């Protein structure tokens, strides 16, 4: 696009001329240029110099009659557009200073002549005239008469006589604005008139020479463009373009057909360019694309004479390039092309036709055509002397060339013959380096496609680019591109395309003596899945490039060549420095094949162990399987198998080649195996199975297999597990026989190249000697014994872990926040074996103890020795806990590199409550204080117990052994919990235990206290029950050694309350049948008030009663009322006394003693008691008849 002249590339801009008053020119031209649409200004300082601007008019061509006109020499004049854009103004503005208008008559006359002169120049053309009177002093008004005189003189409309004020900014601005409007109007008028004038000519000369009609249409279109009438411009450009098409059929008959065709194409190119630009600027991308397609279709076949065909291709290439550039600039403005519908139904447009990349690619394609035909033309014209190429220059008509001949001072254009022209064109063509241009075009296309993520098109462009580089000898650039493209073709399995790319790479490597690359590419090519029956026809040599035809035969040739090279029989014939490059001792070659290498086709190594786990020292089998897709059989001299444990490495020799084996005795100490044959055939697994043994535990993994072929060539092939082996790339699409790497199909599916070598079996016993559940509070002892049974224990370490059985931690998170020592279960300590000093243990052996973790070092033990220690664990909450103990040691004494052996043991231990303590508070027998808080009981108010004030109550504390082992109770006491709160009552209990009491499981121990509240407080704090106990372990000594455990139980506080009434029943402890006794009911009023009480006594079957059944009594304040009944028992045994009911009227509460309290035993006759003293403290009453 850059090669077009500027006037073609940009839309035309109206041109006006200002004459005179040069000090204002810069103002005016800046202002006009900033208008929309802009106006260009042609400035002349002096009115008198106006003839420089406008040469005297030529005789009007319209004066000639149509018949008399000579045939035009060309279609378009080269400089016509430039002339109208830069030289012929549409409007001339004469700037006249006001001084001259209003000045003296001499000045006026001078002015008049200048205006006349100007008028004379304009006459005959339709250039518009504007007269501007410049008034620099706003105060000085020019009189109306003077203005009219100027107007008359200049023969302009009043509209076009302007006064231009320069005095103030605002006036200046206003004047400029006015000037701009007038200029725009007049320019529009001028270009319209011109257009109309030419249009008339077209109509008049419709039968005239088509060349002229084309020229006129072009002019009309240009004038329309000046007016920004794009629609009309487009229409006339298209008219011109279509008329041009009509010229073409007559071309071949003409004398200088080649030049004529060149001219037509040049004009067509310009017209097409204008049309495309207008379409694209109008946002009509689809129309532009369709237009381009038509343009392409109509001119593509117009090749012209064969010797000039390169000109055609060059022209075609330029069409594509220019359209690509146009599309690129306009599609940057139009963001998305995707909304465009894909063409019309009969002419569908495809995606890429909207992409500049498509056109760049085709431009490159045609440029290549041009190059090859130019090369041909050059070779044909060899020997000709291009004697006059310099003097040929473009002539006055577009697309025409002529020879410049110097005749004296002037140059004369002399038309060329076609032959001369061809010589000129060829010599011109030779000057350009097409290959760089082609690469640049392809690069643009490639980048553009890559940005669109169109990988395959981009690769194709890249491939063509790389071929250009290759042809130009730039192998490094070519290789970069080729490698990239090859990876795409490998991935998608396009074997033929890959073959071609690899062919270039291979030849390039050969030319640049890159032996390693040459061998790699050769191997890959030889192993490609191309067989005789793939149906791919043989290609021409030129087309298939240096690779040759993709056939099995060619693969075999390559195979032989590369094996010749590695076996050092052949050298690599390098063209660059002439001498052969060989694989030799000074130039050894080593290839690596990993899991993603394309060379996996060449050699694939699969390694499978026959077992998954082995014991150290025991042997298992390992199968190596090798597969190659090379077309011919080949032999491997030696295979080296490498493991991660290097002492397992071994070397496999061919049994038939003993000599080679001895010669390569480089690596000493490695196992050497032999195989019957190391010959690989196409697509056939070579399976080799050997013993393998490792003494080292851990993972044994086969890393790689190194195949040695020839004296200085090795291939290192990464070992793959059959279980996780990928399919062979490229070959996986082939319809071939699939075989397994191992004979055993199970191994082929699940075989691994790694094996786990176990640890040696421990020969040490670890016993945990705990029995039974642990009791909360005690430090539970778990003896741990390490007994060596064959292994020596060296640098042993015992790890102890306490783990919650149900998961989770050994402490609740809530507690953990509160205090650190709230572990539910805690490892307290580890004590050594008996007899060892405790302090020594602390410093030396106990390495670390945490609450649930411990680490102890174990002294070195000889075989048969044993060592033990004790773990102390304390439970705080009932919780089952898993105790894990693991011993790690090394059986050998020789340093740290030997492997550790681990023994693990675990034991679940339950933590249980040993003792549960309960208590009970009771009132004295048959004495019932009225507690008001009990009468108006709220359903949930029984949280705290109430006790009457100033009464003596009984507290019974009982401790139950709820464990499964007998316990010794050492003491039971009630202690105040805190010193600062005084005990508000006095407790009197039985004497303390003299000897530890034995509690068998389930047994209960009770102790009775009397409680008397001492103070007038409302609350009675009883304190804590402290129980000291220990596990009863049978023998006395051991029992003494175990530390007693203290269990605390908090007694709840008791509310105290004064009772208004106390009822006590009194009757003898027993009665005798028929013997009357007295039953007293005492009602004690403890208040200061008179108490009214209703009493009621129910009849009882077994007694005869005397006394009132029901009554109302009044009890005086602080006094006691006694009601007595006389009862005679009628039957013996446990008898129910008559039920007594009391209702306190004041408190509206009733009272009835409990049934237990109102029973009495009736003896049939008077009993006899005998007191017996018992050995211990307990008193027993024996009831005797």
């Amino acid at each position: 696009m850059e090669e077009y002249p500027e006037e073609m590339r940009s839309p035309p801009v109206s041109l006006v001329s200002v004459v005179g008053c040069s000090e204002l020119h810069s103002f005016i031209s800046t202002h006009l240029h900033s208008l929309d649409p802009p106006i260009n200004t042609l400035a002349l300082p002096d009115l008198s110099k106006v003839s420089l601007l406008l040469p005297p008019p030529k005789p009007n061509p319209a004066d000639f009659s149509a018949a008399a006109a000579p045939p035009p020499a060309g279609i378009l004049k080269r400089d016509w557009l430039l002339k109208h854009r830069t030289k012929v103004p549409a409007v001339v503005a004469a700037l006249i200073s006001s001084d001259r208008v209003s000045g003296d008559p001499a000045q006026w006359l001078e002015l008049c002549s200048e205006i006349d002169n100007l008028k004379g120049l304009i006459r005959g053309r339709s250039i518009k005239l504007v007269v501007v009177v410049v008034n620099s002093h706003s105060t000085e008004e020019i009189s109306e008469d003077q203005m009219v005189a100027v107007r008359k003189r200049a023969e302009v409309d009043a509209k076009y006589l302007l006064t231009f004020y320069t005095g103030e900014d605002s006036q200046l601005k206003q004047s400029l604005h006015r000037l701009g409007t007038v200029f725009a109007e007049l320019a529009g008028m001028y270009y319209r008139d011109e257009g109309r004038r030419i249009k008339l000519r077209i109509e008049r000369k419709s039968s005239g020479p088509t060349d002229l009609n084309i020229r006129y249409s072009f002019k009309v279109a240009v004038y329309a463009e000046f007016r920004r009438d794009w629609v009309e411009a487009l229409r006339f450009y298209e008219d011109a373009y279509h008329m041009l098409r009509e010229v073409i059929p007559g071309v071949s008959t003409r004398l200088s057909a080649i030049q004529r065709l060149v001219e037509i194409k040049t004009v067509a190119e310009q017209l097409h360019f204008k049309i495309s630009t207008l379409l694209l600027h109008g946002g009509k991308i689809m129309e532009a694309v369709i237009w381009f397609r038509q343009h392409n279709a109509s001119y593509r076949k117009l090749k012209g004479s064969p010797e000039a065909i390169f000109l055609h291709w060059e022209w075609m290439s330029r069409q594509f390039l220019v359209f690509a550039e146009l599309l690129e600039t306009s599609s940057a403005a139009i963001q998305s092309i995707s909304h465009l519908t894909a063409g019309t139904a009969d002419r569908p447009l495809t995606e890429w036709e909207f992409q500049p990349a498509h056109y760049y690619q085709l431009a490159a394609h045609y440029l290549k055509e041009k190059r090859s035909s130019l090369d041909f033309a050059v070779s044909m014209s060899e020997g000709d002397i291009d004697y006059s190429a310099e003097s040929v220059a473009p002539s006055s008509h577009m697309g025409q060339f002529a020879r410049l001949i110097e005749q004296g001072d002037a140059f004369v254009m002399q038309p060329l013959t076609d032959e001369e022209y061809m010589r000129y064109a060829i010599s011109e063509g030779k000057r350009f380096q097409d290959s760089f241009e082609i690469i640049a075009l392809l690069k643009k296309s490639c980048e553009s496609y890559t940005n669109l993520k169109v990988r395959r098109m981009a690769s194709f462009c890249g491939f063509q680019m790389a071929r250009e580089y290759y042809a130009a000898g730039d192998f490094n650039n070519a290789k970069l591109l080729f490698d990239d493209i090859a990876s795409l073709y490998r991935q998608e399995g396009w074997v033929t395309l890959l073959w071609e790319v690899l062919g270039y790479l291979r030849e390039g490597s050969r030319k640049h003596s890159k032996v390693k690359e040459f061998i790699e590419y050769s191997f890959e090519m030889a192993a490609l899945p191309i067989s005789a029956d793939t149906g791919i026809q043989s290609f021409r040599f030129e087309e298939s490039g240096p690779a040759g035809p993709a056939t099995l035969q060619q693969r075999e040739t390559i195979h032989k060549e590369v094996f010749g090279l590695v076996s050092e029989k052949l050298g690599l014939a390098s063209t660059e420095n002439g001498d052969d490059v060989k694989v030799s001792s000074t130039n050894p070659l080593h290839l690596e094949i990993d899991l993603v290498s394309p060379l996996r086709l060449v050699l694939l190594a699969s390694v499978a162990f026959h077992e998954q786990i082995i014991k150290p020292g025991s042997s298992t089998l390992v199968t190596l399987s090798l597969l190659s897709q090379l077309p011919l059989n080949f032999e491997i001299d030696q295979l080296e198998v490498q493991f991660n444990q290097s002492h397992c490495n071994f070397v496999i020799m061919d049994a038939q080649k003993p000599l080679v084996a001895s010669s390569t005795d480089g690596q000493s100490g490695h196992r050497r195996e032999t195989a019957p044959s190391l010959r690989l055939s196409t697509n056939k697994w070579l399976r080799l199975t050997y013993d393998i043994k490792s003494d080292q535990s851990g993972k044994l993994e086969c890393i790689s297999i190194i195949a040695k072929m020839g004296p200085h060539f090795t291939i290192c092939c990464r070992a793959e597990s059959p279980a996780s082996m990928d399919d062979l790339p490229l070959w996986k699409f082939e319809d071939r026989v699939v075989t397994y790497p191992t004979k055993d199909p199970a191994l082929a599916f699940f075989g691994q190249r790694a094996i786990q070598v176990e640890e040696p079996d421990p020969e040490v016993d670890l016993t945990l000697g705990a029995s039974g559940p642990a009791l909360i509070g005690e430090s539970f002892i778990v003896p741990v014994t390490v007994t060596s049974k064959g292994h020596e224990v060296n640098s042993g370490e015992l790890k102890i872990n306490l783990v919650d059985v149900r998961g989770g931690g050994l402490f609740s998170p809530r507690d953990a926040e509160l205090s650190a020592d709230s572990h539910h279960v805690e490892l307290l300590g580890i004590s050594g074996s008996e007899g060892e000093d405790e302090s020594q243990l602390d410093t030396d052996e106990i390495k670390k103890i945490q609450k649930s973790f411990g680490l102890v070092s174990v002294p070195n033990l000889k075989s048969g020795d044993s060592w033990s220690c004790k773990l102390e664990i304390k439970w705080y909450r009932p919780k089952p806990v898993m105790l894990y103990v693991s011993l790690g040691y090394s059986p050998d004494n020789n340093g740290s590199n030997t492997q550790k052996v681990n023994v693990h043991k675990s034991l679940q231990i339950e933590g249980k409550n040993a003792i549960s303590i309960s208590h009970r508070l009771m009132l004295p027998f048959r004495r019932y204080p009225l507690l008001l808080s009990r009468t108006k009981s709220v359903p949930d108010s029984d949280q705290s117990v109430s006790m009457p004030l100033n009464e003596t109550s009984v507290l019974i504390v009982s401790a139950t052994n709820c464990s499964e082992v007998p316990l010794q109770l050492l003491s039971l006491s009630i202690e105040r919990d805190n010193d600062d709160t005084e005990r508000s009552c006095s407790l009197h209990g039985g004497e303390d235990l003299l000897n530890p009491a034995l509690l068998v499981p389930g047994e209960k121990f009770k102790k009775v206290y009397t409680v008397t509240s001492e103070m007038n407080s409302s609350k009675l704090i009883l304190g804590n029950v402290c129980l000291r106990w220990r596990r009863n372990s049978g023998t006395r000594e051991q029992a003494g050694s175990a530390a007693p455990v203290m269990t605390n139980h908090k007694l709840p506080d008791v509310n105290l309350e004064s009772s208004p009434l106390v009822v006590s029943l009194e009757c003898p402890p027993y009665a005798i049948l028929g013997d009357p006794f007295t039953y007293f009911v005492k009602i004690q009023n403890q208040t200061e008030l008179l108490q009214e009480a209703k009493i009621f006594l129910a009849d009882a079957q077994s007694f005869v009663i005397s006394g009132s059944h029901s009554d109302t009594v009044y009890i005086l304040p602080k006094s006691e009322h006694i009601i007595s009944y006389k009862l005679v028992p009628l039957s013996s045994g446990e008898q129910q006394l008559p039920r007594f009911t009391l209702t306190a009227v004041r408190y509206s509460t009733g009272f009835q003693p409990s049934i237990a309290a109102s029973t009495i035993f009736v003896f049939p006759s008077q009993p006899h008691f005998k007191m017996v003293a018992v050995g211990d403290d307990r008193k027993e009453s024996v009831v005797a008849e």
Partner: protein
Amino acid sequence: MIVCVAVVGHQNNPLYIQSFTDADDALKLHHIVHCSLDVVDERVNNPKKSGPTLNETFLGLLYPTENYKVYGYLTNTKVKFILVTTDLDVKDADVRNFFRRFHAGYVDAISNPFHEPGKKITSKTFAEKVSTIVKSFGFSSTG
């Protein structure tokens, strides 16, 4: 005239490619077929562009090169058929018809129990059938 037909598999790998030219430009045709896969991807990934051709197996004209036209077809199992022709004035109906017959032939070929899905089609019967269809393409368009 049809110059090349191809069956392209899921990984964009050629399953069957056959050219029918006397001139030895098979490699060029391979390149054209390979490049046309980009358009197939584009059409399949942005179905909104094709609008009315949604859910249709026939993909239409993929791209015009200077001398060839490339048509595409996508089976319901996402196997692509590519057709390269030198006829610059081809009726869509003819191409559709061709692809329908080609598809039937392809289905027959891969229904062979000895054919492994995803591997190249080596059946000679298929090759014969394809060449018959290709030969009849020119006649049906004129007739």
